[in-house]
């Protein structure tokens, strides 16, 4: 198998990995929610339920941002799934890929700050892997990561 073939396989895996990761565990709840394991999907819902609380505008806004940021993962994953096989020239392809990379870096930084260096839960690990695959694939076939050049 050539490097380009491996890169093609990795590129195709990015989307499904991110989508699957969204529905797999991301984190345990803090404090009294220690028994709760949250997936990306349940985090979006839980943040929505928290918005019912009497929150300040800043905290409420922060929750909306967090919900949309997490939601962005599954949207980016589905864009990658649709565009990677034949339409990587479309600007949506690098945009969604880089979104996964930036999100993964931020999530990893938050994770390390909160829990130190530990293995991430399966769902988050899948999202990190999808971001890593995108980076690797775009290094082997830079064309894919820079649609603007097409």
């Amino acid at each position, binding site marked *: 198998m050539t490097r380009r073939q491996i890169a093609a396989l990795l590129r195709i895996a990015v989307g499904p990995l991110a989508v699957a990761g969204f529905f797999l565990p991301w984190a345990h709840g803090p404090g*009294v929610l220690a028994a709760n394991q949250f997936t990306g999907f349940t985090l979006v819902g*839980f943040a929505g339920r928290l918005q019912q*609380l009497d929150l300040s505008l800043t905290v409420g806004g922060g929750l909306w941002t967090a919900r949309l940021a997490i939601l962005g993962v599954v949207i980016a994953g*589905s864009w990658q799934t*649709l565009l990677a096989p034949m339409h990587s020239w479309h600007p949506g392809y690098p945009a969604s890929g880089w979104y996964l990379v930036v999100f993964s870096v931020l999530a990893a930084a938050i994770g390390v700050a909160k829990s130190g260096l530990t293995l991430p839960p399966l769902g988050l690990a899948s999202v990190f892997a999808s971001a890593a695959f995108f980076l690797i694939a775009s290094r082997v076939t830079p064309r894919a990561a820079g649609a603007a050049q097409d």
Partner: protein
Amino acid sequence: MAQRRYGIVITISLAVIAAAIGGVILLSSGKASDVDLTTAGLAPADPALYVAFNTDLSSSQWVAAFKLIERLGQENPQQLLKDTVADGGVDWEKDVAPFLGGNAAIYLRGFSISDLNVQGAAIVKCKDAKRALTVVQQQSGLDFTEQKYGGVTYFDGGGMFLARIGDHLVLAMDEESMREVIDVSSGKKPSLAGVGDFKSLRDELTTNFLAFVYMDASAFADGIFGGDRALKDALEASGAGDLALKPGAAVLGAKGEGFEFQAAAVGKAGDVSPMLAPRTSRFAPMVPADASIFFTTTKLAQTWKAVKGNSKSQLDTFFRDEGRYRNLDEALRAAGQEVGLKNIEELINLFTGEMAVAAWFPSLDESDAQVAVLAEVTDAADARRVMESVVASSATSKPRSETVNGVQMTFVRNDSGDELGYAFTDNYLVIGTAKAARSVVAKDFGPNLAGAAKYRATVKEMPTALGTFAYFDVANLLRLTTGGVPVDLDDAERVLQGAIVNFVEERGVARISAVITIAEK
């Protein structure tokens, strides 16, 4: 050029996909999920009492409950919960979190007050049942010996029996109950989850709650009265047996702006059914917005007729046994004569439609209560005759007439020196304290109750339609009982708003529902 056009199509498709996925996930993930009562699958089919709790602290119910508790003045209740547990030397993450798998229940069976005997068990759906078992064993301080029954290992601590059945931890106070749960788990005995009455009551009540209670009143009566049939027979003979002795269930929950309660019974409402029909009150818009108490019911006359028709002999016996009257009819006549009528049924028979009582306190002083009774009447002439007799029986002055808002009103002073007023208009009767009755007729009180924000917010939170109900303006009533607006109202009193207790029959099921609303600080 072709790729450019193709690119636009793809861009639009991506935008549509993003909107669809985002919309579906935002809607479905935020939706309140039902509490899956897995513990009912391990409880035997015939408990006297089964009480289950939602143990998912991230559920919409708990999030709402924590919010309402905060409004009541408790800052960060989640942290308080954790700290309270920690104060007892228990680590939340290691020793409590393993128990929180979604629901936990206690059931009681073989209940007897006479020999202080209770059979039953606690069943907990665990996040980590193995760890939960260890925690109980360690915290109990008992020495457990291993036993086996029906292929399940259980632990005998001498008065406490523990077992892990799948994701569930079972804790029984007697060995028989433990073996029963094991039999249920293996399918040898039927479970509560398969009982028709239990399933229908669960479906009738909201499936998203903090606590759920199922009670077989018949089994309770057996336990309390030692199987004596006397009470059961009396209840059945009175016609109340269907409601009182059939299984019932209740849920307690938190949502939006308040705590809610709802109860339902398998039995039919029977004779009182006409009073429990879902309806919109005609009189709520006819009393002032600051009414602190508002009670409404309907078809009292029809209900009385049905009750009397079906239970006359029991009521005759009751009055005969009381010793004052020979039978019901004599008691009704005597009651009527006390208010200037031949028979009190003359008064009862007036109330064929809605009847409401409203009370308000313009100066927030209990002694300045304004009370009005409003009732739909079909025969105004007969109603006038009855009311004139009733009022004349206690009047100490000659009635005087006055026209208010085009309606002729009658005012009279009673033997306590208070002035009463009444009038008939638009097929309804209004009677009450002179000020209140005049105000209702004159419609000069400004905003009405049906349009009041507090009343509307309370009605909005009701889990059922309204039937016969009482509304309380809790905030106002609290101020009354303390004799004016207290400076040091604590947080809880400051945020309590309205409350409704309601009786209604919906889809053939008699229900009690209640709600208390809590305002933002």
